[in-house]
């Protein structure tokens, strides 16, 4: 027993010696660390981040080491983030909204470490926030839905009534209305990001109510599978779900964080990293669309055209005239919603057949 203990201690000392330097070699090498709310192989949100992490690894080779902690509960994540900060990470990406205040708190204690928090809104000298304009993809989906739908009604399986989700619902309907002004949208809240059972039930309810296209802001493939089984159309979410719905998936919104992560880690290496608020979209490649499938060519062509228009800035999704659900004017003709409003969006546009949970 004694010898084992000694070996353990010896190895441990060796370990701490090899771990100690690393960080201070000015910009030759860097350590990039990631905190995931789910499992790194959840097939959705966290996996998309982990794939981007692997892309960082591959891109920089030996210059950058990456590490991650998965399935970190949002309750009490401060200790986890601190452990990473203390273990030599140069830049830490915390990839869920719930990590916001803990990230800010740890960042205050470690001014030399850079932090990047996904989907939040609080920044500091060493904290950048970043997010993707997912709603741009939703607009394209809405156009496609209105074009292929025979019933003129789509179903939306939503997670939680936070601004990001509300943006998506509104953008989807605005896209649909640009094709069919009378298009309507039913929403079911499942109150989870990942709950295959509840998501499938929601899909069934919506289909029974007569929708013939469904889209989801939840992470499992269950709704797409349900659509496939019932012979209607659906959109994938976060990753390509074509295997779950070979004849159902029209397209999918793909989270592609890799270019952003590579850019930010490069900035750390170059010493040019600064605190920013990054809200990128289709144009920046942080958001891409899966191939347009299972639809007539002319609809696919329209979708591609819209995608190009959004990328070039010619089309801005939230541009007036837009009326709120309660009938009051949100945006006048030609008026563009500012990011501040969008980041706190808590109302529906006209035509949503649902009461926004408040």
């Amino acid at each position: 027993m004694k010898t084992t203990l000694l070996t353990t201690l010896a190895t441990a000392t060796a370990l701490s010696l090899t771990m100690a330097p690393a960080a201070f070699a000015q910009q030759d090498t860097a350590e990039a660390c990631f905190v995931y709310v789910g499992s790194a192989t959840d097939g959705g949100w966290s996996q998309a981040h982990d794939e981007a992490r692997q892309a960082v690894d591959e891109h920089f080779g030996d210059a950058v080491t990456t590490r991650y902690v998965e399935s970190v509960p949002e309750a009490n994540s401060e200790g986890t983030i601190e452990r990473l900060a203390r273990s030599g990470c140069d830049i830490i990406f915390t990839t869920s909204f719930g990590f916001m205040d803990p990230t800010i708190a740890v960042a205050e204690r470690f001014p030399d470490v850079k932090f990047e928090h996904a989907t939040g809104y609080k920044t500091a000298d060493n904290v950048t926030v970043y997010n993707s304009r997912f709603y741009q993809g939703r607009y394209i989906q809405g156009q496609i839905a209105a074009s292929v739908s025979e019933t003129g009604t789509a179903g939306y399986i939503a997670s939680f009534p936070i601004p990001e989700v509300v943006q998506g619902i509104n953008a989807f309907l605005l896209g649909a209305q640009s094709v069919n002004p009378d298009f309507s949208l039913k929403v079911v809240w499942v109150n989870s990001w990942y709950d295959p059972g509840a998501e499938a039930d929601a899909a069934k309810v919506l289909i029974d109510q007569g929708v013939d296209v469904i889209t989801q802001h939840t992470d499992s493939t269950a709704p797409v599978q349900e659509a496939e089984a019932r012979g209607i159309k659906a959109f994938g979410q976060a990753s390509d779900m074509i295997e779950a719905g070979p004849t159902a998936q029209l397209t999918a919104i793909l989270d592609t964080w890799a270019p952003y992560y590579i850019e930010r880690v490069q900035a750390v290496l170059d010493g040019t990293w600064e605190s920013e608020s990054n809200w990128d979209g289709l144009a920046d490649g942080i958001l891409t669309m899966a191939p347009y499938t299972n639809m007539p060519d002319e609809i696919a062509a329209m979708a591609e055209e819209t995608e190009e228009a959004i990328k070039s800035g010619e089309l801005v999704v939230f541009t007036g005239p837009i009326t709120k659900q309660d009938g009051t004017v949100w945006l006048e003709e030609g008026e563009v919603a500012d990011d501040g409003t969008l980041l706190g969006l808590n109302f529906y546009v006209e035509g949503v057949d649902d009461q926004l949970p408040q």
Partner: protein
Amino acid sequence: MRIELIKRGTPSATLRYLSPIIGLTLAVITGAIMFAIMGKDPAVALYVYFVEPLTEAWSVHELLIKAAPLILMGAGLSVCYLSNNWNIGAEGQFIVGALAGSIFPVLFTGFDSFIVLPSMVIFAMVGGALYAGIPALLKAKFNTNEILTSLMLVYVAERLLDWLVRGPWRNPGGMNFPESVRFPEFARIPQLMPADGRANWGFIASVIVAIAIWVMLSRTLKGFEVKVIGTSPRAGRFAGFSATNMIFFSFMLAGACAGLAGIIEVAGASGQLRPIISPGYGFTAIIVAFLGRLNPLGAIVAGLVLALTYLGGEAAQISLQISDKATRVFQGALLLYVLACDTLILYRVRFTRTPRATVEAAE
């Protein structure tokens, strides 16, 4: 060769204390094999798991933060289980306690007075106790199975918290995100040694409460009553003890402990309410209670050990890139072995060469 288990005449006192150590040793061996198969040096992995989290002051603070709710709830639940009341809803009582205690900082943000923090603590304990009183009442009046009702009420509490932080208690300045305002400084539990880490007085409180419950159990008539009713309800009745009163006493005591743990968590480490405030402390506390031999002092040790496995799992992920799943397998093995080794307290192991048939014939 066969292995036989032979019931002991009396439970072995030695093994009562030795069995967790045997379990721990078996878990360490299993873990070492598992880490070796994964291509990690077992010695390093075990060091990272069990020792590294204790090598730095701030990390010890994190340990105390995680241990406090486990100790409190583990000690409270011990009283329930000793008296044969199967309260498995500590998680819900934790949440309701946290909510009741948060009424002041969330609804009366400007009310700065020395009385706020003590009131929060009292509200939390009362809230947790009353919430635990529901399954107690159902059991006492309608003979409802308390395992089911207390568990179901966990989900009710989770929904209540979810609704509050997304609705009425949402931070008005929080961009519609689901969280409450951050508690002002006067509504936060003071830190023990702010220079070294984040641990707060909640840990000290948890140890004091655990000791108090131990004194109650081992030195008072009430404690005797708990044990008599637990081991023999009939004997309890003859002694004039009321099993019905015991249902309320044990549930509400455990509920008050859980409520206190809840407010310690939100007014201590977190500083605000979120849709999820507990990584399952209330359920882990059930394991803490049993690992601690249903002894509140044991719960202190067990709470610290389980808190260490959480931190160790995290450290192993960070420094060795051992998957979260592997660390959970290791945690599971640890608990399984420790609890399985309890068999040794009641049974003697005999290795025998005699085939089964012969034994039966002989009998």
